């Protein structure tokens, strides 16, 4: 008998498990329509790889996840793809999502599937691929893709592999019945996982209210090194963090994963699915599902095809529609109410409770919190629920976070015992959502600010570079001017003094003509003006013009960018202005190049743009 630890808090809700354990697991029939959501678990949704009208075989892959985290979806039976459309899916919000609708043809004809008798001969990667290709995502809760979970981070060694058979939620007996009737498959699946992970300890945790499952599992692990740990019945012992604490005495660090402390938890249903994927080559197309509650005449567990609408299953369990008051998907502590019974069973669904009004009565009206502390007494995470409630209600989220709001597992123990009937978990969900939204917005605005600051820095840098270039150009121009001066002086010195007056007159004439041309032609038309060879002053003037045009373009560009960043309504106008200025710069540049060409032998100033 291995050592067990206790976890803080916990409650003992009425179990209501006998109702659904009195009958063996029955096979639910093939419904008229199977609704297969493309997203059945956390991660990326799958993409349909079949078209409406296609005939598919049982076990055929009909949707695939190409990139990111996810697993494929398979046809649970043979039939025709009827539609790919938005339909209500199991979700607390009652939302619709993309689903493949399969119309079974009744033949239940299997496609190809390849069992492996000796997986030891394969590479571990091959086995992991088989698990992925079988579409297995955790059957216990959030539905993390199993192949990814079985690949812990490189620097983390899983020393303890735990199979979670605690099933602490009232009403639900899917794992209990799976262990009773499929113990060998569960153990076989666990062995495959253990072969992949090579842990030093394998343990199956089962609550002591399941004696038959315990017996069956003890028989099944004969001759293996797998331990069966019988844990005291206390909700929520099946919570991953709580079960890890019970079986190892360790705590998963806040914000971390079990692999951080060398532990991995898998659900018993997942183990069975792995066993079927490897030894029978069958993908995950059905699961054990509890249908219970006082509004059904024959509550029990069913082997149901994934995609079966809840409504069909309720009929099979003998629903008394007039008695039905509340449909809960999952258990009474953490499950959520359904708005419609048309939603399908997905890979992560384990139970539906068809409750009468007397069975799950509406809670009495909320009263003020009297700080009695019952909530803190039962909190399995050792939080201060009443303080969290207070801060959540007052929207003081920073303080709520400081008191570890995000460590809350929403088990509902606090609400369960609250003498003032306060829907505490609802307040925590609200607070968490608000904080997540705020964080997302903060991230968005941080990114916008970073972008803005980067742009400002870039503009400044460009401005500096331009200034530098301008200075270089000015320097070069000055050098050229000085050279010209020297040349002119030399000419004068060479004795052209006699022609001095004529030359002067010619220069004056030239200047006059230039001026005339300038006034006649707007700056845009500069390139058309000088028909005679351009001289140094012309080039200088053009240079200056180009610089001015460039500067203006810059300013306009800056204004435009800013306007765009602020989404101002003058963006269009500025865009036009920038385009206009851009043309102007282009023309000025052409004119300058032209003038330089014509200047011929004149040493051209260094222009680089």
């Amino acid at each position, binding site marked *: 008998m291995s050592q067990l630890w206790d976890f803080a808090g916990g409650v003992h809700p009425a179990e209501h498990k006998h109702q659904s354990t009195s009958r063996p697991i029955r096979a639910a029939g093939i419904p008229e329509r199977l609704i297969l959501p493309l997203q059945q678990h956390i991660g990326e949704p799958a993409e349909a790889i079949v078209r409406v009208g296609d005939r598919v075989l049982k076990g055929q892959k009909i949707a695939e996840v190409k990139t990111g985290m996810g697993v494929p979806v398979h046809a649970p039976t043979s039939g025709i793809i009827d539609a790919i459309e938005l339909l209500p899916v199991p979700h607390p919000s009652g939302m619709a999502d993309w689903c493949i609708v399969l119309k079974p043809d009744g033949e239940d004809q299997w496609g190809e599937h390849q069992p492996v008798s000796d997986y030891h001969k394969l590479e571990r990667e091959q086995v992991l691929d088989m698990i992925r290709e079988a579409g297995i995502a955790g059957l216990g809760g959030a539905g993390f893709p199993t192949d990814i979970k079985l690949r812990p981070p490189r620097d983390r060694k899983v020393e303890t592999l735990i199979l979670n058979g605690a099933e602490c939620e009232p009403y639900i007996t899917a794992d209990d019945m799976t262990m009773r009737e499929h113990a060998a498959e569960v153990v076989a699946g666990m062995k495959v996982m253990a072969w992949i992970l090579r842990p030093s300890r394998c343990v199956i945790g089962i609550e002591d209210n399941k004696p038959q499952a315990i017996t069956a599992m003890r028989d099944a692990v004969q001759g293996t090194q797998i331990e069966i740990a019988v844990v005291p019945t206390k909700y929520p012992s099946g919570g991953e963090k709580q079960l890890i604490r019970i079986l190892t005495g360790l705590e998963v660090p806040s914000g971390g994963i079990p692999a951080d402390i060398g532990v991995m938890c898998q659900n018993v249903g997942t183990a069975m699915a792995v066993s079927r994927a490897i030894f029978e080559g069958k993908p995950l197309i059905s699961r054990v599902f509890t249908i219970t509650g006082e509004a059904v005449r024959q509550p029990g567990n069913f082997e149901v095809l994934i995609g079966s609408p809840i409504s069909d299953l309720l009929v099979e369990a003998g629903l008394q529609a007039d008695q*039905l008051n*509340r449909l809960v998907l999952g258990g009474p502590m953490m*499950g959520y109410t359904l708005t419609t019974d048309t939603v399908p069973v997905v890979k992560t669904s384990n139970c539906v409770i068809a409750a009468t009004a007397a069975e799950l009565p509406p809670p009495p009206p909320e009263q003020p919190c009297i700080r009695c502390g019952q909530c803190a007494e039962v909190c399995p995470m050792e939080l201060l629920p009443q303080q969290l409630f207070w801060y959540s209600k007052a929207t003081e989220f920073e303080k709520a976070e400081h008191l570890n709001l995000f460590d809350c597992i929403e088990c509902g123990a606090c609400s369960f015992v609250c003498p003032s009937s306060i829907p505490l978990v609802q307040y925590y969900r609200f607070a968490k959502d608000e904080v997540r939204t705020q964080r997302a917005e903060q991230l968005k605005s941080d990114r916008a600010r970073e972008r803005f600051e980067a742009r400002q820095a870039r503009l400044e840098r460009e401005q500096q570079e331009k200034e530098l270039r301008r200075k270089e150009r000015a320097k070069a121009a000055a050098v050229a001017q000085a050279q010209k001066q020297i040349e002119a002086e030399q000419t004068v010195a060479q004795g052209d003094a006699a022609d001095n007056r004529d030359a002067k007159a010619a220069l004056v004439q030239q200047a006059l003509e230039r001026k005339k041309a300038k006034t006649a032609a707007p700056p845009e038309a500069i390139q058309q003006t000088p028909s005679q060879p351009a001289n140094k002053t012309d080039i200088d003037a053009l240079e200056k013009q180009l610089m001015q045009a460039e500067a203006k373009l810059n300013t306009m560009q800056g204004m435009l960018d800013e306007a765009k960043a602020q989404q101002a309504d003058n963006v269009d106008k500025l865009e036009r202005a920038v385009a206009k200025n851009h043309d102007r710069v282009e023309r000025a540049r052409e004119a300058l190049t032209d003038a330089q060409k014509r200047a011929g032998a004149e040493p051209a100033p260094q222009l680089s743009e």
Partner: protein
Amino acid sequence: MALVQQSSPHAHNARPTSRVMLWVILAAIPGLVAQTVFFGWGNLINVVWCVVIAMAAEATILKLRDKPIVFFLKDNTAAVTGLLLGLSLPQFAPWWVSGIAVISAIVVAKQLYGGLGSNPFNPAMVGYALVLISFPVAMTTNWAQPATLWAGAPGFGETLATIFSSSQTSVDAWTMATPLDEYKHKIASHTAAEVLEHPTFGDLVARGWEWVNLAFLAGGLLLVWLRIITWHIPVAFLAAIAIMSLAFGYNADQYAPLQLHLLAGGTMLGAFFIATDPVSAATSHQGKLIYGAGIGVLIYLIRTWGNYPDAVAFSVLLMNFAVPFIDHYTPPRTYGHHKPRRGAPGKSGG
């Protein structure tokens, strides 16, 4: 088909506030019976009177605040406040003294602070402290003699008439200093043996008082057993008094001995019924231990060196002041964290 929409959890197993309060009332009955046996009808009359006034005051102020009257009266919290005052006030306290105590408890200490759950101070103790300071004579001279000493013990009618009459002429014959009062004032000039000769001490610890305290202890243990209160506050409270008595009062000729501290005055009523008022007490286990111990230490200090023979009300109120501070520094360590996150956000991790 209209399916009910509800947030989880769907199962509830709460003991509603009204039932919690009812258990508190029931658990106080042994103490009330002991009071009646040893000190006459005074406490019972006070309890009934205080409860009636408390309910009336609560109803009136709820109406003024435009709150649902029946909904809140049904929670029994006003009745508990009235009950606690009725149990704590002197047996022959005139009707208007208890009336003022109750009205200030309900109206000022509770409702003006926002009603149930919002009061930082224990309402009953606010009422008690108010009348103790305002009417010191009425609050110290009206303690009944233990019934075993009375030659002509007053019957129910006489007690009722005394409490509700305008002049309390006959009361002196039926009253006596409480053991704590007697010890406190005589020990300075007498030896312990001399002081204990006074009939108020009786053969055991404090005539009548010891049984009243034991009865409240029994009721309190019932509350702990029913998990209506946790053990933290009473244990820390009593342990603190015990440690202080042993540390400072080991010499009975100087200070009151341990057994007198534990079994006289309002010790057990305070430890199990008053200090444990959840609204005004500290939250976490660690916080409750500090809070309870603080009350115990203060009770000892005031009883021994203060002006008052008993000090439950003042000690509880003083520690009520400290509750936000205590809560601030005593959150529990959450699963998966190395240490508790004390103090304000932005500081210390864990």
